């Protein structure tokens, strides 16, 4: 590179790896420098662990052992997690884009990183990664907490039983999938209340609607929603009418993937 070229651009062109790290560092610095993000994660953790303990206590103190062997015992671990972790983390993910759009900060972001898909990818990596970490930690805490309380009644399951570790790991991923779906909807809708409503509708609303459908339709449509797919995976045992675990996992991956693609399509074509 000759001297005039350097002066024109002002600097050497960094490699793709360095640029990717720039975007990740950008989004990570933004995520970690807002206190409400920590508060949200703390609320999610406290609410999840607390509700899990209550649910486990209730189940453990029920006199009749539920039929079905290990399945209820494992699913019990995630009843609290599925709501009290997913809702706050989804709201946090929505805010990653909507807070920038409502304050106008998004224009600074797009001026700093004009390739908008890179901004989306950076936010998805950082928020999704954080959600995955929080999700895995909470999933294992919920699992051990519940099983510790159930094992006193000899109804617990061990992490070393077949199907169990995969289920617990997948439970952590559920949080990441929900967060990425919510993040994308935030990028598409831009307004905080609308995005939160849309995210909760996508995550819970559709499944709740499927639950009230007559029986063949209930499973036929319901198995493509995230809660049904998550239930199949978390049960660690094939459920009648639902997709097998591998396909259910694809459903859990497909929702955030489709939402991210839609968000990438929209934000690269729209005026900021």
């Amino acid at each position, binding site marked *: 590179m000759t001297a005039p070229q350097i002066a024109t651009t002002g600097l050497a062109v960094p490699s793709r790896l360095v640029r990717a790290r720039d975007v990740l560092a950008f989004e990570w610095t933004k995520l970690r420098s807002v206190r409400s993000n920590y508060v949200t994660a703390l609320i999610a953790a406290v609410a999840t662990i607390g509700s899990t303990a209550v649910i486990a206590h209730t189940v453990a103190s029920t006199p009749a052992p539920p039929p079905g062997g290990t399945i209820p015992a494992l699913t019990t671990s995630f009843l609290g997690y599925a709501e009290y972790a997913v809702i706050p983390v989804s709201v946090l993910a929505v805010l990653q884009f909507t807070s920038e759009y409502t304050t106008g*900060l998004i224009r600074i972001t797009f001026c700093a990183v004009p390739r908008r898909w890179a901004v989306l990818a950076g936010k998805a990596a950082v928020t999704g990664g954080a959600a995955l970490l929080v999700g895995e930690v909470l999933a294992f805490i919920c699992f051990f907490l519940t099983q510790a309380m159930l094992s006193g009644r000899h109804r617990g399951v061990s992490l070393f039983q077949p199907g169990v570790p995969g289920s617990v790991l997948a439970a952590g991923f559920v949080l990441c999938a929900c967060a990425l779906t919510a993040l994308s909807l935030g990028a598409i809708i831009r307004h905080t209340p609308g995005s939160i409503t849309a995210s909760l509708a996508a995550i819970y609303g559709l499944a709740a609607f499927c639950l009230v459908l007559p029986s063949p339709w209930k499973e036929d449509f319901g198995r493509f929603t995230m809660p049904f797919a998550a239930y199949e995976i978390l049960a660690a045992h094939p459920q009648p009418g639902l997709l097998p675990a591998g396909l259910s996992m694809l459903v859990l991956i497909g929702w955030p993937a489709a939402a991210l693609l839609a968000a990438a399509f929209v934000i690269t074509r729209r005026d900021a």
Partner: protein
Amino acid sequence: MAIAVLGAAVAFVAWCLVDLARAGQVRYLPKWAWGVVICVSVPWGGLVYLILGKARPAATAPWEAPVAEEAGLGPSGPLFGRHVPVSPAVIEVDRLTKRFGPVTAVDALSFTVRPGRVTGFLGPNGAGKTTTMRLILGLDAPTSGRALIGGRGYQEIIRPLHVVGSLLDATAVHGGRTAWFHLLSIARSNGIGRRRVVQVLEATGLAAVAGRRVREFSLGMKQRLGIAAALLADPAVLIFDEPVNGLDAAGVRWIRQLFKSMAAEGRTVLVSSHLMSEIALTADHLVIIGRGRLLADTPTGRFVSGTHRDVLVRSPRAGELAGLLTARGAVVRPEGDGGLAVTGVDAPAIGDLAAGHGIAVHELVPRHGSLEQAYLDITGDSTDYRAGTRTPEGTAAS
């Protein structure tokens, strides 16, 4: 130790993943299979660790090292002046048009902003200044035409903050973030070091409040923060939209000096305003638009002298003098306080005329139109026109 922990973590995750793939099956992997998984995972974990370790070898992470230094532009010493513009970073706006539905915000606008001078970008409210700046910065897509910076579209520039620093809206910040983290995040996005963040905080007088959250800032402090962000990478092109809003008198003087010194260093400085009085003392060149169209693209000095001249005359026999002047082809407009505003005849001719007829003249002042007056004259039509019908193009677009 770290390798062992990482390897164990990878092995555990691999175990869980294999289990997930087998979920629902009755048979279980034999014990020796786990031995294989762990034996394979641990070296891989070590390899990943080594690669990650290699990727950031020194004590300074990549974003810590200013790239300008690598490019041989010298160490980061003084705040400004590291940039040595050899090739001019010109902003070229070429037949730029932006329509929002039926409204034409920017209408076939063409002008060039050159380095080494402060260019004032003027127009009444709603003239399309902000839209033009957003088009230059690649935030909005133009309906037609293009805007180039140093021959490139903004979106083609890699690490653009090193080339263009901009401030569009000082209030567009996340209130929950401190000034330090606001600037640090922007700095990291373009590989700018922490030292530079400290420098711009000191230069803009925000060092003492760097740890405070932005929502506690006044508008003037937010303006300074926005200017600090624009200066982060020491860019050759600076674009400011209404930067004086909210600044106190000292701040206004500071920012004027800043613009002038930036231009003197050979940078391209584009500053918008809707008030001529804010710009008149700073700008060397004026680009004036109204209703999205170019009204004037001229050096500031020529803009003043080119318009609106008259001569103020006071005389005890004003009525008689007015008659004589009118007879000579001058246009005489009586002012409220008894003076006469005369156009068409210059001051010496008026004096001679009065002397020839023995009329005493108490005051004879040639007046140049003020910048403010010239600006109001040129934008008056476009402002009035706004309330009326739309342009034919605008109607066609709907």
